[in-house]
């Protein structure tokens, strides 16, 4: 890429934007020409159980040597053993499509709770041979969700439940060693732009674009901006008025209201893309498919930006590497779904759990829409990323977690830009994060 010219001249040296070698690892998330043949979700659950079991079996002898591993059907009362299977969480308040048919309308609450937990929730472990209800104490159902594969040590009780004494999850996957990067290179994360919505202040977004592309500020600001190697937009970039999308005929004037936000986004993206590589991921509100993995936004939506080879439309979840630093992230649907069906002290804890369970979205396909793959479960995390991000969250949070084999991951929750005016800058040299906060508020 040619050096970016900076206004100034007068013998000052031209600032060159740093570059980083990019490689997209989105292959498992692409659907390409998969054909739906009427299959159900049993196939993806089988693949998940099979792959995770093969990861867990080698860990079992080290965890509890001498104990036999058996299937659910092979459980004997009173015999201590280890079973490995998929967790199902039975939740009383979980909305079920069957409720529409079985109960009278009046008993269904009109206001849906944000979190469907209930003290009576219980866990069930399932493998190919059968299911068993999990009893007791060690497992707090509020920490778990349907879809996790784990090993349990315990014994069957007289009433047919499995009394759990200890739990083993697969843990953080192996991590490739982080390369040493000698100079500061930044990646900017933005999410929740909601262009076209009422919450976004267009001037704020324009300020952000100008700052990142180096059109703002003095030499010091510009030299900092020149160290930004990539921008990752993590979902919910447009907000189209929902009322117009209910399937009825749309007048030309309303059609304008639908595509206007996308056109505005394209204009801003073109300004960004001229300056540096941009990855854009689809989110819940974007014009992409509903179920995970969301496919890349179509290039036709961005006639201006897509003419540049620095414009990369990515899947959600998105996995890539920059200068051999591994990144993995989503637009937030997986973490939001965990928040509805389980409890944790903060969103970072949910993110940490997904890494320790080695699965990006364990609640898919149970409560999170997902494509019924037959030959793989693409959400299994095979290698530990160095940076794990999640978009469209309420606030900015970040933490580094450590793994038993020396893995170290920077977790980042990216706040919605339309609400907070905050973008995140990550320094690839030391994986430190700071915020880029923009405000157009004239009151000091």
């Amino acid at each position, binding site marked *: 890429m040619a050096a970016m010219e900076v206004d100034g001249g007068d013998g000052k040296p031209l600032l060159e934007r740093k570059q980083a070698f990019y490689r997209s690892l989105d292959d498992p998330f692409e659907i390409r020409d998969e054909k739906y043949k009427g*299959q159900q979700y049993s*196939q993806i659950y*089988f693949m998940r159980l099979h792959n995770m079991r093969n990861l867990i079996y080698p860990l079992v002898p080290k965890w509890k040597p001498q104990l036999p591993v058996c299937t659910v059907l092979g459980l004997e009362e009173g015999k201590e053993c280890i079973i490995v299977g998929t967790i199902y969480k039975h939740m009383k308040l979980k909305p079920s499509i069957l409720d529409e048919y079985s109960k009278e309308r009046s008993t269904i609450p009109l206001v849906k709770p944000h979190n469907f937990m209930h003290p009576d929730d219980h866990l069930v472990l399932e493998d*190919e041979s059968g299911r068993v209800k999990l009893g007791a104490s060690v497992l707090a159902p509020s920490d778990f969700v349907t879809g996790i594969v784990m090993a349990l040590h315990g014994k069957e009780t007289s009433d047919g439940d499995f009394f759990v004494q200890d739990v083993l999850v697969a843990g953080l996957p192996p991590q490739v060693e982080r390369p040493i990067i000698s100079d500061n290179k930044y990646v900017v994360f933005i999410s929740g732009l909601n262009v076209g919505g009422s919450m976004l202040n267009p001037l704020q977004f324009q300020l952000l674009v100008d700052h990142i592309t180096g059109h703002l500020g003095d030499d010091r600001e510009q030299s900092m901006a020149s160290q930004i190697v990539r921008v990752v937009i993590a979902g919910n970039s447009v907000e189209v008025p929902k009322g117009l999308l209910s399937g009825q005929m749309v007048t030309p004037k309303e059609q304008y209201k639908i595509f206007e936000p996308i056109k505005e986004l394209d204009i801003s993206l073109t300004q960004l893309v001229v300056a540096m590589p941009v990855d854009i991921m689809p989110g819940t509100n974007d014009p992409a498919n509903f179920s995970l993995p969301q496919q890349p936004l179509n290039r036709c939506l961005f006639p201006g930006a897509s003419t540049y080879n620095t414009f990369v439309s990515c899947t959600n979840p998105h996995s890539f590497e920059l200068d051999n630093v591994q990144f993995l992230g989503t637009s937030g649907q997986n973490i939001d779904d965990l928040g509805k069906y389980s409890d944790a002290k903060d969103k970072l804890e949910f993110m940490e759990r997904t890494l320790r369970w080695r699965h990006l979205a364990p609640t898919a396909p149970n409560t999170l829409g997902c494509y019924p793959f037959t030959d793989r479960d693409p959400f299994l995390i095979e290698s530990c990323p160095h940076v794990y991000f999640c978009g469209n969250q309420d606030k900015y949070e970040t933490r580094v977690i450590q793994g038993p084999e020396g893995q170290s991951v920077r977790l980042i929750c990216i706040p919605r830009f339309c609400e907070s005016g905050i973008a995140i800058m990550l320094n690839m040299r030391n994986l430190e994060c700071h915020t880029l906060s923009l405000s157009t508020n004239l009151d000091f």
Partner: protein
Amino acid sequence: MASGGDIKGFYRQRKKNTTISGGVTKPSAAASKKKGTVAAKGPSAASVGSGGDPQPPALISHGSLDVDKEYGPEEEVLRLFDMDMKYGPCLGVTRLERWERAARLGLHPPAELEGLLLRHREAGGGGAPAVKLECLWEGRI
């Protein structure tokens, strides 16, 4: 009636005064007489009053009738492969795909099944194949 042109067969059954839908019998003199004979015959005549086709066309909305009450040993082996839990669920994938998936996962499915399925795939339609390419439950669930 999605199972193609079997309306005549359906009406023919009504004329014979046998079951209208699988298993549901109208109490009639004929039925009760049959009950008597069943008692005399013993357990061999298991279904009472249902002399007709066990799978009346009306009930089958898609898929095919299992008109082949006999099936060869090759189909038998494939059905056992379908039912084996080790290789995962059988519904929703063709047998060949399931076999290939099992091979890829290192589960060592019986090698001769692959040959069997490929041969019959190459052979094509032409009449009722001795071996089906889809699993046992395909089209019925």
